[in-house]
């Protein structure tokens, strides 16, 4: 099935109109020797019926979807409300493109404006953009903003920041010659504000909550960073923002985050949505698209893409970022989800995560040989130390129908016996008990 409307008569008429006898003539500009003289060696066409069966079969062989999910590490098994899925998948949003013609794009533009407003509210900052690719990408752009704003090239990153995000930062900036230094966490799994010297640093990067589910003392870290003239880039989980302090309130200059928790499916790691917010005085350094309010020719409120002089299609080599296509549809889903929650719903969501995580932590720590690695408050994740290699334990638990992890040994050698456990509002007390029993059985059989 190829979705092409042309009848043979259409093709004949259209060829005649362009003065050609056959379709091959359309490619006359291509040097003859380059033209492929065979069909592509790709799988044969399927009818919709056959394709549906094939996709179903492939999906059926991805059994992880059926497991009870206690896995975390930047992607979470949250509930996506039915209204969110229904609205964000509307074809009028999904099959539109970048709102270059505002008259035909008020829907997307206003939804993006609302998204920006919501991101500003939860992060406690002044301006947000229309989204970036994912959490890692937002972190990179936050660091690049700080580098431009301070004209410095030293960057301090807490090891409590997602290891993948730190890897992406290194990759992204490898051509720019930034001096990236990683900061160790203390015994409680958080960064000690007294442990680093931000002299000549462009940015200090922390996560709230961090990769271990722990709450960094962002305010103290920010004070320390600001003393040295460095900006603070704070990776913050939007699902925590109903109960935890906002990055802006704690002194962060840039808040970034992964928006998957808000209305977006796990989808094996993407499409997700990078959140990005900062202070108003840094707005001209913001990467990516921004929707702004104005009035139309008749004085009515209207929305447009604005401050485009920052962007690649205008500023080219001197743009604040190379980003063009972003994750607008995921941003719309996040906006709808945040509006569905409202302030009380977002607070309730946070309460459930905190209390059930505490419940799970207490239950799992009661298993002989297991303990919670870091003392202190946690949001929706904690690190469980186990008496065995955590990677093999994760695998074994998967066979018992539970996803856990990631195991931490590949990034933190001293935590090879440890793994992340995440508890969202979808996990019940029964799930927690069954999960604990699965760990007990697995450990008993070793």
């Amino acid at each position, binding site marked *: 099935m190829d979705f092409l409307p042309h009848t043979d008569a259409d093709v004949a008429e259209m060829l005649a109109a362009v003065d050609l006898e056959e379709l091959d003539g359309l490619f006359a500009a291509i040097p003859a020797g380059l*033209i492929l003289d065979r069909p592509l060696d790709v799988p044969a066409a399927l009818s919709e019926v056959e394709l549906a069966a094939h996709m179903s079969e492939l999906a059926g062989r991805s059994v992880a979807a059926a497991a009870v999910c206690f896995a975390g590490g930047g992607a979470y098994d949250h509930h996506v409300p039915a209204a969110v899925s229904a*609205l964000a998948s509307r074809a009028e949003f999904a099959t539109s493109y*970048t709102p270059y013609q505002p008259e035909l794009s008020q829907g*997307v533009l206003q939804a993006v404006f609302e998204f920006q407003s919501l991101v500003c509210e939860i992060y406690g900052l002044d301006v947000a953009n229309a989204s970036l690719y994912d*959490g*890692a990408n937002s972190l990179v752009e936050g660091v690049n903003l700080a580098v431009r704003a301070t004209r410095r090239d030293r960057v301090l990153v807490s090891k409590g920041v997602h290891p993948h995000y730190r890897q992406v930062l290194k990759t992204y900036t490898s051509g720019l010659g930034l001096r990236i230094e990683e900061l160790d966490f203390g015994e409680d799994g958080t960064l000690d504000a007294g442990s680093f010297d931000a002299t000549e640093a462009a940015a200090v990067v922390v996560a709230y909550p961090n990769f271990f589910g722990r709450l960094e003392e962002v305010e103290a870290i920010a004070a320390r960073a600001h003393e040295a003239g460095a900006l603070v880039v704070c990776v913050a989980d939007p699902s925590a923002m109903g109960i935890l302090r906002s990055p802006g309130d704690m002194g962060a200059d840039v808040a970034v985050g992964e928006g998957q928790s808000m209305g977006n499916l796990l989808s094996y790691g993407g499409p997700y949505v990078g959140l990005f917010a900062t202070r108003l005085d840094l707005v001209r350094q913001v990467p990516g698209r921004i929707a702004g309010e104005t009035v139309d020719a008749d004085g009515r*409120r209207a929305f447009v893409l604005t401050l485009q002089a920052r962007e690649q299609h205008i500023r080219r080599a001197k743009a604040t970022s190379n980003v063009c*296509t972003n994750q607008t549809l995921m941003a719309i889903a996040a906006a709808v989800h945040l509006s569905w*929650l409202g302030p009380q719903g977002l607070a309730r969501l946070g309460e459930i995560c905190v209390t059930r995580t505490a419940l799970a932590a207490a239950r799992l720590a009661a298993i002989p040989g297991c303990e919670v690695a870091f003392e202190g408050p946690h949001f929706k994740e904690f690190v469980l130390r186990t008496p065995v290699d955590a990677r093999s334990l994760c695998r074994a638990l998967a066979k018992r129908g539970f996803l856990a992890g990631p195991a931490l040994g590949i990034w933190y050698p001293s935590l090879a016996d440890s793994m992340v456990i995440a508890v969202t509002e979808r996990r019940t007390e029964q799930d927690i008990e069954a999960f604990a029993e699965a760990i007990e059985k697995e450990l008993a059989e070793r």
Partner: protein
Amino acid sequence: MSPTLEPSAGTRTGTDAVFPLIFERSRPGRRAWSLPETNGGSAELDRLIPSSHRRTTAPALPEVSELDLVRHYTRLSQRNWAIDVGAYPLGSCSMKYNPKLAESAAAHEGFASLHPFADDELVQGALELLGTLERALCEATGMARITFQPAAGAQGELTGLLIMRAFHAANDDPRSKVIIPDSAHGTNPASVSLAGYRAEEVRSDDRGLVDLDALKEALDTDTAGLMLTNPNTLGLFERDIREIAAAVHAVGGLLYYDGANFNSIVGVVRPGDMGFDIVHMNLHKTFATPHGGGGPGSGPLAVSDRLERFLPAPVLVPPRHAGDVWRWDHDRPESIGRIHSFHGNFGINVRAYAYLRSLGPDGLRRVAERAVLNANYLRVLIEDSFPTAYPGACMHEFVASAKHLRKHGIRGMDVAKRLIDLGYHPPTVYFPLVVEEALMVEPTETESKETIDDLARCLNQIAAEARTDPDLLHAAPVSTPVRRPDEAKAARELKLRWSPR
């Protein structure tokens, strides 16, 4: 009869009515949310999270009923053009039909509910899908291996440029500049800067193609490579590509293929056969995945054999023996490193896979044929009204100019706005920068002859109106919820968010 963006009775807001923000629909105490009770209630929360970490002022999120929410976003969606609403000949964006079967394919729990840290053994269907898609895209581009991490074309560009850097570094031959034609997309020079290179532009010649002499002059042993879109943004095939490739390779540079316009050549000619070393594809263009109002896309990056070792880790490894499984290989010592939080926009890649399997080899080639046929047919139908900047046949798109209407006080944007009233999304306006009053038109292969005939009729009518009734164009559009928003005011008096105060 062409479709128009005529708001239905329920969405028409009148000339002076304001469409509210979701925040303006908020009433304290109203709610849409439905969540379980908390274990232990807020006292338990107080016990677990010290007050120093507790938020004291709730974020001012809207408080609305679920019906308020549903109507708000449904009506917003109706204030938006989309492929499913009508034709969208936006040049360089390949706004073709996004098959519904791809949406239902991606919605399977076995794709949509997979955690990215799930063990390889548990996601075999997903990995096989990616593996098959990789082989097919390698075959279509003439490349050896692919990374699916880049979430969009620009991220693919950066990935490719960092691979270019790694290649030269491995040869102990660091270089400082990358050459791009003046007709290139803005992402090209922006990515070049981000990769730590200097972008050097070469001019187009009077054919609209890379000026071969200027290119040869620019090329030296400090040249890391050339980024090229082929066909280029003028919709013209760079017919000197073999000479271009030879010249770049002669100085030790690499050739980067920007796949923005791959739709016009898929199944006909392969970037690898043209001499390219690095290729990104925009699956949201050529492989028909929905553009989502500006994203998500997917920008997988393909490389030739000699660059494979630099790909972002992990790289997918197929089963080699009976009993093996698909797995990710993280042990890639020469990798440039990770570029995405996880595995890229997997859900988009599922849709692209479904599209590819639906079309098969002949279907893919027909895509290119019909895309080029439609563009040339439209080009000929409107050439008296809007001549192209460069004469002759085009590929899947063409760049016409409205500069001859300037004497009537009409600019390209006026033409675009009037076209809205006649029921079409306008072409891309004022790009590429090398053409005055550019109208970049890409009808795509999924539009029918009748639609193109009607679009041409409308464009020809507009050219006539420009002479006889220019005020009609200046006043356009009149059929939309808003008209001619004041962009200067938006940039001058920044209002970038709703605020409770």
